[in-house]
């Protein structure tokens, strides 16, 4: 089996990018990743995307992207795993390179939700749930998060404002990320006073949908990954685990059991323990997801995740830094592209390119994306060589 290295990264600023197309965003990220790797020959382009079919009427997206970027005659396909689609593209790229069949691949996460407007947005986003038995009752992903949060509050009685720790951290970190959508801090007070969107979930509990593209150049060619400027990064684990789509189809909705399995497998594959993980880009699509994730990871007991997040230091200088470049909450949440943004940010940290948010001596990073409320959990571990 080949080892798999990350030799280049690229990303666009995240936001509501009305003027840009799926392929134009992709190209900006691709050119960034190609340039870093010295413009090598590319065998494949794997596109992670959730909405192009429903929102932009464009299937076979990888072909559209490749043609626009002058990548003729290569291999492409699109991967979809809900909001974890970008992470799925990374996993496909990892498998393809590891298998020896593909030497060098571009992994592109791209999303363009502003090709549609109005309440249709809720409809296309609701595809990530069980359509027949969740969406057809008028539920949305925001509503799923509201249901989880209500149950959590009722079960464990944390102080309501303590649940704001993760969004507050995310906003503090995004200030130093030039690609982030919201580069401003929010206070505990502002969090507490924020309007309810799905009672008890408030405006700051939900990451803002956004457009954007991020790209990775991955390769089995170790030389390609190493230059004077940057350390080679190896992908040391890649795992993917599902739970039911619908919350009602799970024995315990608060368990996020796919997180538990995915993380245990990833740590075993990489041969590391939590104490060796220097930063964790967890999935903060909703603040309650972050809480349930750290509990499912075993970082905190069930019912204690809110406390672990609120009372420990998870800033870039803390014991286990989280959402170091702003996470989905403040970097912005480009849905199917977000998993590749997480990967780009982890590489920035491992290379020592994270600026004011640099985690000192970061050698090993875990990133984790979710489709739905941990319906599909994809975990990767990267290590600096």
């Amino acid at each position, binding site marked *: 089996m080949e080892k798999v290295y990350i030799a280049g990264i690229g990303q666009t600023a995240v936001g509501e990018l009305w003027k840009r197309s799926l392929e134009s965003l992709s190209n900006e990220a691709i050119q960034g990743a190609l340039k870093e790797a010295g413009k090598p020959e590319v065998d494949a382009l794997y596109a992670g995307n959730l909405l192009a079919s429903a929102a932009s009427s464009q299937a076979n997206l990888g072909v559209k992207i490749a043609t626009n970027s002058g990548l003729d005659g290569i291999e492409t396909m699109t991967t979809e795993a809900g909001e974890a689609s970008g992470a799925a593209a990374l996993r496909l790229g990892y498998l393809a390179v590891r298998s020896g069949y593909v030497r060098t691949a571009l992994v592109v996460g791209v999303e363009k939700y502003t090709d549609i407007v109005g309440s249709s947005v809720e409809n296309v986003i609701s595809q990530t749930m069980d359509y027949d038995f969740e*969406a057809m*009752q008028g*539920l949305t992903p925001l509503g799923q998060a509201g*249901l989880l949060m*209500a149950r959590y509050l009722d079960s464990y009685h944390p102080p309501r404002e303590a649940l704001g720790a993760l969004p507050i951290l995310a906003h503090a970190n995004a200030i130093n990320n030039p690609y982030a959508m919201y580069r401003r801090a929010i206070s505990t007070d502002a969090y507490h006073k924020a309007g309810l969107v799905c009672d008890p979930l408030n405006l700051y509990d939900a990451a803002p949908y956004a457009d954007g593209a991020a790209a990775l150049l991955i390769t089995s060619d170790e030389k390609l990954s190493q230059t004077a400027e940057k350390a080679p990064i190896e992908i040391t684990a890649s795992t993917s685990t599902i739970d039911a789509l619908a919350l*009602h*189809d799970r024995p315990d909705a608060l368990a996020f059991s796919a997180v538990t399995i995915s993380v245990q497998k990833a740590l075993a594959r990489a041969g590391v323990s939590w104490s060796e993980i220097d930063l964790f880009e967890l999935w903060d699509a909703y603040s309650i997801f972050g809480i349930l994730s750290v509990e499912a990871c075993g970082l905190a007991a069930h019912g204690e995740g809110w406390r672990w997040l609120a009372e420990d230091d998870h800033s870039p200088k803390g014991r286990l830094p989280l959402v170091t470049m702003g996470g989905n909450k403040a970097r912005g949440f480009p849905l199917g592209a977000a998993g590749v943004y997480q990967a780009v940010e982890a590489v920035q940290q491992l290379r020592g390119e994270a600026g004011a948010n640099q985690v000192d001596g970061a050698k090993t990073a875990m990133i984790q994306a979710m489709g739905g409320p941990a319906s599909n959990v994809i975990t990767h571990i990267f290590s600096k060589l």
Partner: protein
Amino acid sequence: MEIPRHWRLQKQRYGLVGEICPHCSAKIFPARDVCPECGGEAKEPFRFSGKGSIYSYTVMNNAPVGFERGLPYTIALVKLDEGPTVTAQLTDLGANKVEIGMPVQMVTRRIKEDGDERGMLIYGYKFRPVMG
């Protein structure tokens, strides 16, 4: 236009009809082809009583196309007395304060307008507080 699938799911939506596993007697809703308890083939219809209690609930202030008229609406995870949990709107709340654990009973109501010019109305289960 989604007429074929609404028609396909009509029994499940109108009558809260799921399945009972012929191998292990697990009661299943929504219906599946394979029993989640024992892995056997599940095909025997079972009509649920519609009695249950609220596992969790939230209030929707934005809705997808077809649900806007009911805004704001309350949606819940309802734990049925027979075992399974179901996602559904709460209705006929009146002055009742919704609480986790509250007993509820299934009723049939309009749940959605299909989004084309024909404006087809789709009916199905909602849950209301159990009176007295």
